[in-house]
């Protein structure tokens, strides 16, 4: 039963990882940007929510309503300025720029919020559990986050396949120049993709702030998990990212069941195994370029 519990908890964690990773997958899939600041952007979202509460007196849960649109706008602006400027030079510059952004973010957060561990308090919501059996407690919040992850991925899927803008995002991802020939202002499309990516990562960031304590440098470790989820699931596949997150989550929980020290290691081993056996990931359609 403890193993079953490990799997259930792994699935719940996987939803969170998927939410974290989907923005990374979009940025890479659409514009070829490997965003090394992705984890740090999530941490910013948690800090913004934290800073907002004493000012607005809103419950922490409502931070989503304010922070997510804020990050969407911020993502568009970030893409149209800093990221586009570096893309116009060459892809390697983009890697350096996002790395630099990551360093800058961590240091500014340290300066403003100190290195003390913080957390977003949502009161009893976090600790209330649904007991499937006495041995398998399921936190309502984790359950809600998994549902949010599935909902976000489903909404994205619909957006990309049913709307004109979504189709154009896929067209730009396929062939940017050909997309220009059918009338795409690719910089604008890139901006929209970045807005989606940052909106999703801000949801993940706030959820992270609720689930565990966070510090200004917490982003880097989470970036690694997000990368692993994307690679396991396969680049360019939304549902693959969810499966990748769940596989990673289950691996970590099972590792922890064997020995708590093996939690992170087990995730890395599964990641390496997928990389060795299926380099395109479980659901990857296109070759990673």
């Amino acid at each position, binding site marked *: 039963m403890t193993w079953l519990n490990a799997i259930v908890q792994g699935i719940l964690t996987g939803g969170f990882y998927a939410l974290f990773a989907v923005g990374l997958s979009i940025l890479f899939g659409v514009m070829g940007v490997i965003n090394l600041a992705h984890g740090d952007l999530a941490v910013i979202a948690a800090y913004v929510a934290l800073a907002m509460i004493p000012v607005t007196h809103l419950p922490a849960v409502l931070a989503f309503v304010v922070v997510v649109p804020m990050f969407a706008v911020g993502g568009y602006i970030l893409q149209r300025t800093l990221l586009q400027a570096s893309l116009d030079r060459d892809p390697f510059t983009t890697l350096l720029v996002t790395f630099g952004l990551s360093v800058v973010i961590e240091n500014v957060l340290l300066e403003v919020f100190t290195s003390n561990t913080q957390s977003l308090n949502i009161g009893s919501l976090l600790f209330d559990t649904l007991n499937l059996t006495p041995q398998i407690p399921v936190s309502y919040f984790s359950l809600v986050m998994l549902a949010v992850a599935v909902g976000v991925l489903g909404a994205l899927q619909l957006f990309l396949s049913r709307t004109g803008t979504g189709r154009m995002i896929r067209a730009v991802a396929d062939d940017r120049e050909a997309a220009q*020939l059918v009338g795409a202002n690719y910089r604008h499309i890139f901006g929209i993709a970045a807005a989606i990516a940052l909106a999703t990562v801000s949801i993940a960031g706030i959820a992270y702030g609720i689930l565990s304590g966070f510090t200004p440098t917490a982003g880097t470790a989470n970036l690694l998990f997000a990368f692993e989820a994307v690679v396991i699931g396969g680049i360019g596949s939304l549902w693959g990212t969810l499966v990748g997150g769940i596989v990673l989550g289950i691996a970590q929980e099972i590792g922890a069941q064997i020995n708590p020290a093996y939690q992170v290691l087990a995730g890395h081993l599964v990641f390496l195994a997928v990389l060795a056996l299926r380099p395109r990931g479980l659901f990857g359609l296109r070759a990673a370029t």
Partner: protein
Amino acid sequence: MSAAGALLEVDRLTVHHGQLRALTEVSLAVRPGEVHGIIGANGAGKSTLLRTIAGLHKATSGRVVLDGADVTHAPPERRLEAGIALVPEGRRLFPSLTVEENLLVGRHRARSGPFDLAAVYSLFGWMAGRRRQRAAQLSGGEQQAVAIGRALVANPRVLLLDELSLGLAPIVVQRIYELLPKLLASGVTILLVEQDVSQAMRAASRIQCLLEGRTTLEGRPGELSREQVERAYFGSEVSGSGADAPAGGLTGPAAAVGAARAARGEPGEGGPPR
């Protein structure tokens, strides 16, 4: 060449790829209802010319004018709205999108006009039945048809066609070229680039030959002699051997030979009198 009455006018266009000068003061004028054919060997600058007109390359100097409006510095999407659409070399469909999605994407900034998805489906009978297939699953000829459809649904005034015949079986090429009269009848003006000289001579109402980025010959296909075309195509140094190959027979392999000869020979004899 007079620009009077021209729908699309290119005026002394010079384009560089980095350090390399790809086009040198190339001018052309396409009148409404014409099929203007650009011929030339590999590397003559034909594709660069079309891509610059469509806005994918920046002009170093010179102008691109559509119906009196200067679009030289407009981005590709503005030129599409103004009425310039390019069917790029190698089709360049969006492989992960379906046939229908490729066409829908083409409608993104469409002008009003006769072409919509239904019109394209009636132009290519097979297409509607396979509209849910991914573009990557189509044959080369089918992809070319979708690529033309994708450009048509934007209802361009000038349709730029880059190497329609490339990599396609002759029968498929023939079928695609049979479309041109229908497109002209619907009011589209065509500027096409073709390596297959005989094909271009049959399809075009005006022919312009490029050699190493310069215009070497221009005129109506019926008024140009075989020798004139060969000289313009291969460069002035070619002699003797030219008489063996009829102008109508210059195709891919011959063009490659021509490119090699042109590389050794002098550049062309300058543009036609302006």
